[in-house]
């Protein structure tokens, strides 16, 4: 009876947010390469998470996976809106990010920093999930909405690219 009651008890949203704020922020930084946008999207992610907190079911996945799914969806919405805006205005180059000049990867070594910036968002996404957040293959695949094998292949490709670019940058 006690065990059932304990298992039925739920962590508060505040504690979940405290535990996983850095994870969500890092994920969004890697996706967007922009600290300001990542800041905004993190805020938006937790706002959405708060609204959907009553529907969250721990049996279907961890809170971190759930938050990353919301963050990814929020980032995709941002990217799509940004692309539409760029098409309308045609004022910026397609690859020009919108944000401030602060480099989110400034703490990294120059070859790694340069290599990361050259990777696509898709590559950075899988690296963030598997390397930075250290999600297992199944959880990462769930966040990205793909199969576990596809996730492994995507990670492998992303790491190869990263390795190549790091070596090239190191040589330069």
């Amino acid at each position: 009876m006690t065990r059932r009651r304990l298992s039925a008890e739920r962590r508060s949203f505040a504690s979940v947010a405290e535990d996983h704020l850095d994870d969500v922020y890092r994920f969004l930084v890697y996706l967007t390469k922009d600290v300001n946008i990542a800041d905004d999207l993190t805020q938006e992610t937790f706002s959405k998470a708060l609204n959907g907190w009553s529907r969250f079911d721990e049996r279907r996945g961890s809170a971190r996976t759930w938050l990353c799914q919301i963050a990814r969806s929020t980032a995709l919405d941002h990217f799509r809106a940004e692309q539409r805006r760029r098409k309308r205005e045609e004022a910026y180059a397609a690859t020009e990010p919108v944000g401030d000049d602060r480099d989110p990867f400034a703490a990294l070594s120059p070859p790694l920093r340069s290599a990361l910036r050259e990777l696509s968002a898709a590559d950075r996404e899988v690296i963030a999930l598997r390397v930075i957040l250290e999600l297992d293959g199944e959880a990462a695949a769930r966040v990205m909405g793909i199969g576990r094998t596809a996730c492994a292949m995507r990670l492998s490709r992303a790491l190869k690219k990263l390795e190549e670019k790091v070596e090239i940058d190191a040589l330069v």
Partner: protein
Amino acid sequence: MRWSDRNDDDNLEALLRGSDDSRLGSALAELREKAPEAPAGLRERTRELASQEPRPAQRRRLFESLRISWAHLGAAGAAVLLIAVAIPVVGSLARTGGGSPEATGDAGSAGETPRSPVEEAYGGADDGREQSAQDSSGGGTDAPTAVGPQPSPPPPPAALKGAQPPVLSRANDASAGAAPVPSTTRAQNYSSEITLHVGGHEELSEAVQSAIRTTRALGGYVTYVDYGTSGSEDGEARLNVRVPVGRVQGAVARFSELGTILEQQTEIVDLQGRIDRITRDIQQRRDRIAKLEAELKDPTLSEAERDRLEARLVRAKRGLANAMRSRAGVLRQSRFAKLDLTFTTEKRSEPAAPPSELRQTLDDALGILAAELGVLLFVLIAGLPFVALGLIAWLGARALRRGSTQRVLERA
């Protein structure tokens, strides 16, 4: 050596675990070590946002109460068991709800001789529940004719039948050949068809002769005989006999002893209503005749008037005579029962023993399940194309969505 040059399946996992000493391994370790942290401002804002968390709603408690437990599984099992028990019970009630097993043709155990529906209805006494009759004029009023090869009798009367299901019983069985008791207070047209099996040619001949003797002994007469044999053993004889209604039970019992009953069908048609109508008509005609005769005694009648009244009187007397003849014919018909006997050497296959109650219940339950499966199958077959289309559409939409997402991420 580059990490990507090694084709080792465990290569990737080792790299992620940090146990790979390649340049890429070092790079990933650096990525982990120098991962960005959320700024203090964002942390504060998130804390403020999280503090707005509402109290757990009742819906959450309800949702939690829906979690499957052993109690739920037990309740589900009990429900399934209840349905499994209810189906045969409902089937059994539905089957027996329309009447007794005897009334629906269930003869009970094989050792019992089932009573005919007419017998059930009459219960061995006249309670006035006779079936209504159609017009049966022309039948059952024939005069006795000579025994032997005779012309075919007139066609049998059309009547509503109180049919009895096929009966198979031994002639020496005490209950074999039981016949419904005719009414003693109402005029009825009683007819019965009995098919009996006999052993061979000799038994066939003896049975026919015995039936004729029995008919005469009971005060009846034979109206039709058809006797034929073929081969060494095959043969069949048909007899139409009339016996007084009051002795029909004894006649049926004695005929039943001539062989093994294969089939018996009895019909009783009520004639009392017809007789009552004719009787009323006769009385009306008599009254009219008396009135005409009184009018004719009037001396003041003119010649023409007298002629007209006399003509009417003649017509009335002719009608009265016809009505009385008609009533006499119907009464004659009701005094004799018509028995159609068929003796055959051909052994018919015995009907299967009636299924047991349990077997019928199981059959009913299986029938219901089969019907449900049929409906389910129909729904599946009819809905399968739509399900397939929906599945294809869903898969297509998912592929498009994934492709779109991938393009967005590649461009970002």
